[in-house]
């Protein structure tokens, strides 16, 4: 069945988005939990390892003045674990985004798809394509900054204010270019997840959809992202308090003792010991909430842009054609 979707105004986008969130919330929550929960446990472990490693090294330095070499080895090990867990978490987040995008796109096309079916579709060749697309996108955006950063480096090294200033100016210009490209490629993910497009094809497809609507897309994406971040910060503030209770309590004790003029630098170290698990919980909750909304913003915008490119047939036109 050919879905009929007409171009939407900002109010229509809000309306459609909130209805879509309501209709898909349970299924999307399931997908987010299944994929993010194990990743968050690994992430919390990584955080714990990293922070306890740091506090251990500082403790040794406090007592010995000279830090033994093996501690630097443990620090590099801790850093490796830390960054690995971050990469695992980011990949899990991206995977969940794909699953939720599939659920959202199906719903927009008047098809009901279960969370298990969406996961089944996610774990296929398209997931690898999406990983590839993201890597290429980030590489392209990062490459833009290479030349300005080199200029800043040379300027700083040669203590030349002019060259440094030129590098900073170039950085600003490439920053604008990066934002421009980020918006142009914002719909590459739904193109792969829903249309089964190839990696390079997805860039072209997204760019085609955004063409002539760049400012509109940029404005709405920015507005919706700010609103969502605000909502999540409000909701997660009390969760942060509960999850990081131990950390905050120790932090306040430390501030209290500084105010009383009786501070102990080792108190600072105890802060780190209680940080990993709490941060894991807060990160998990925040990202699950983000997953319930952010991918669906892309979905609604993606369908709106397709409608603006006349990709959906009006019922009247369909009847006429028949």
């Amino acid at each position, binding site marked *: 069945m050919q879905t009929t979707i007409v171009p939407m105004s900002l109010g229509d986008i809000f309306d459609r988005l*909130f209805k879509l969130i309501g209709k898909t919330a349970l299924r999307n929550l399931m997908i987010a939990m299944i994929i993010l929960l194990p990743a968050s446990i690994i992430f919390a472990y990584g955080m714990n390892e990293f922070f306890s490693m740091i506090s251990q090294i500082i403790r040794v330095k406090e007592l010995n003045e000279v830090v033994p070499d093996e501690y630097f080895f443990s620090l590099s090990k801790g850093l490796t674990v830390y960054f690995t867990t971050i990469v695992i978490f980011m990949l899990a987040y991206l995977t969940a985004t794909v699953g939720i995008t599939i659920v959202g796109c199906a719903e927009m096309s008047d098809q009901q798809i279960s969370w298990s079916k969406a996961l089944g579709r996610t774990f296929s060749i398209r997931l690898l394509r999406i990983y590839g697309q993201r890597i290429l996108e980030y590489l392209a955006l990062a490459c833009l900054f290479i030349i300005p950063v080199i200029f800043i480096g040379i300027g700083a090294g040669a203590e030349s204010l002019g060259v440094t200033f030129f590098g900073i100016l170039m950085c600003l210009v490439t920053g604008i270019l990066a934002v421009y490209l980020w918006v142009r490629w914002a719909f590459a993910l739904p193109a792969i997840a829903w249309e089964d497009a190839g990696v390079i094809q997805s860039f072209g497809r997204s760019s085609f959809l955004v063409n002539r609507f760049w400012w509109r897309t940029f404005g709405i994406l920015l507005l919706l992202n700010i*609103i969502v971040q*605000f909502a999540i910060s409000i909701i997660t503030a009390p969760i942060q*308090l509960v999850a990081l209770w131990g950390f905050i*309590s120790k932090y*306040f004790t430390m*501030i209290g003792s500084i105010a009383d*003029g009786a501070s102990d630098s080792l108190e600072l170290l105890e802060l780190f010991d209680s940080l990993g698990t709490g941060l894991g919980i807060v990160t998990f909750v925040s990202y699950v909430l983000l997953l319930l909304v952010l991918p669906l913003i892309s979905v609604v915008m993606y369908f709106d842009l397709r409608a603006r490119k006349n990709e959906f047939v009006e019922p009247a036109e369909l009847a006429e054609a028949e």
Partner: protein
Amino acid sequence: MQNNQQVIENDFQPESSSKYEGSWERKGRSLNTAAVVGLLGIGVLYFNAQVMLFMIIFLFTIAINPAPEVSGTFVERISAMAKLYTPPLRISLIISQYLFMLLPTWWLVKRWHSHYVRDYVRLKYSSVIEIVLAILATLAIIPTGAYIGNELVRRLKFPDIFFKFYQELFSAHSLHEFLWLVFIVAITPAICEEIFFRGYVQRTFERTVRAKSVLLVGVIFGLFHMQPLSLITLSLLGIIFGFFYYRSQSLLPAMAAHFTNNFLVIFLYYKEIEIAGVNLLTAEQLPISWVLITLPIGIFILYLYYRLTKKNNL
């Protein structure tokens, strides 16, 4: 029916026959979405504008009157900093409440829902007895809220130093300053926050979820203040204000209750009153006996309020 949601209309009777002629209403969009978008949109605007205003006013103040170098202990430096920040904070608070909370709310109601904004938000008279009961109930519930808040603060070992900052913001050192503070801290939020939270957000939710809107917006009210330690206390107050609004079908009792709560805080800071031998500013915790006495009284007054407003056929 409007977009698969049951819309309840029971009290909105402006002079015109076309009750909801705003753009959102005409297009038959979801009312819950309107409430959420209004809440978050105005929230983002309000908080960001307040921070920017504060920075502008602060820099302007410093440019005109450079701050003296402060040395001394950590506590002394914090106190000096609080004194420096207080005037810009107060001015940014008052401007942002009217310009970035009240005005956008008024505009949103007019554009999305109805030209009869005062009718929509229920800015109308209510009986004196309802207002008096709302004030009494708030006074009776405040000790319970304060007890819960204090307990969390105590358990978290919240340092006294931060209270000094807070105290400076709400303390008046002269009658003139006290009256100015009453306007900033008691009157302004009672008008602006009530029109926004109760008049717009709760009113719009109420049209689909009826009484559940009281609980929902009460918790949102608590969350919006971004003070996790006071979340329970503020949510409790929000629920009570919402209850007054819902039962009386008027904003005035909720405004009076909100004013009472905020006024009491600045009055206690100003007068440093001792009640039954307890200095409310320096006491770490209120006696539990206060809660045991005032809470049942508060509940009883709320019950009286419920009985009194039965005439509204809710």
